């Protein structure tokens, strides 16, 4: 089945220690998104790629970076995790960005714990 895969499902890191979360997709979608979701809150978009074009949200901290080496993979790098970065990180994909093409398919998420 075509899907969005996130690894690992659970990640523990130390305060200030860089961490990378990965996402892969078999849907061959053009757009990949990264969201942060804290407990009992709605998902918050961090950034997205349209093909190789990176689009950062204005309020996304510089501590968060992303890479998309090819269509299938996208990575979220947190350069110096703080306690406030503990959250579920969701990866999603869509065929396009405009309505009719922007139905997002989400992965199961990676729960990040910062000690």
């Amino acid at each position, binding site marked *: 089945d075509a899907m969005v895969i996130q690894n690992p499902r659970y990640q523990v890191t130390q305060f200030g220690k860089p961490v990378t979360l990965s996402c892969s997709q078999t849907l061959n979608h053009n757009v990949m998104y990264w969201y942060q979701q804290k407990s009992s809150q709605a*998902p*918050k*978009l961090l950034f997205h790629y349209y093909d190789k074009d990176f689009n950062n949200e204005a309020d996304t901290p510089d501590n968060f970076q992303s890479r998309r080496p090819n269509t299938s993979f996208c990575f979220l790098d947190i350069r110096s995790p703080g306690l406030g970065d503990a959250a579920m990180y969701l990866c*999603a994909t869509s065929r396009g960005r405009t*309505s009719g093409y922007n*139905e997002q*398919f*989400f992965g*199961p*998420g990676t729960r990040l714990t910062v000690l």
Partner: protein
Amino acid sequence: LAKTTQPISMDSYEGQEVNITCSHNNIATNDYITWYQQFPSQGPRFIIQGYKTKVTNEVASLFIPADRKSSTLSLPRVSLSDTAVYYCLVGDFHTGGFKTIFGAGTRLFVKA
């Protein structure tokens, strides 16, 4: 940027129809309305999307009045497994960038 307002929570019983209304008073001309469902410890799942009047698929209906300042997600004959958080999104990809933000969500509890 269109902001959405939804009820924080709703209760229902199995077999009932559930209607969840979302307010979006400053929706833009190009904005579409999208609903997602999220179960605990899972990513959201697309339910339905519409622009005006009524849209129906195999799981839900979406009603949008002419002024488009609100929308109602209708779930027919809910079951216990419909207990989840339902998010209303308003936005689209405009020339100025991607403008789609998840609202606070409505927690639906379906009781036996």
